[in-house]
């Protein structure tokens, strides 16, 4: 089955979002890792610094992909179709899932502080990154899903 232009844009959007989520996660988690090891004499600092740089470059590339994608959408006059009811439903499901995961993580951290001593700022940063990445990945999964029997 040949995909029409809107179908191709739907798939492009999901792929760009997955790439952006990966890039953002790599950049931010590497940065958190760098902050963890910076006051130690770990030999991993160079590898981690390299990952931070790589992640930031990939994030810039993802932003460029978003820019190019927006131009394609405008050219194809496909903004309404790309934001139809099913997309709204998928976005809502992704945000709800992200919210409950975030909620669960926060309520795990609170009692954990009674047992372990850790840098809360780093934990909060990690949770904040997951709060961005997880809904994006769930949305992208939903966009790829449920296309059986397509004609």
């Amino acid at each position: 089955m040949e995909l029409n232009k809107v179908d191709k844009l739907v798939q492009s959007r999901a792929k760009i979002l997955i790439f952006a989520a990966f890039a953002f996660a790599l950049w931010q988690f590497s940065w958190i890792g760098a902050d963890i090891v910076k006051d130690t004499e770990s030999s991993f600092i160079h590898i981690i610094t390299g990952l931070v740089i790589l992640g930031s470059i990939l994030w810039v590339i993802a932003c460029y992909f978003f820019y190019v994608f927006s131009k394609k959408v405008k050219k194809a006059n496909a903004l309404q179709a790309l934001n139809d009811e099913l997309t709204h439903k998928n976005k809502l499901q992704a945000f709800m899932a992200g919210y409950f995961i975030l909620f669960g993580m926060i309520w795990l951290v609170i009692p954990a502080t009674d047992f372990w001593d850790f840098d809360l700022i780093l934990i909060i940063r990690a949770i904040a990154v997951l709060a961005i990445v997880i809904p994006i990945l769930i949305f992208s999964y939903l966009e790829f899903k449920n296309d059986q029997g397509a004609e």
Partner: protein
Amino acid sequence: MQADQKYFANNLKVLRAQHNYTQADLAELVGVTRKTINTIENRIFIPSAFLALKLAKAFELTVEDIFYIEKH
């Protein structure tokens, strides 16, 4: 999905065949993606009243001619 939503049925596939529309053709007519039409046909997604009216207009029928509740 509510338990009784599975009884929300439609004649979209038959109507498309009668009018020689692909899912993509119908999607373009009503301003949604082909996947939205596919999920409606397969009863995975229930359209809003607005989209149902647009689909009815595309076929020059009423909403009740396209969507119905299955007997159960």
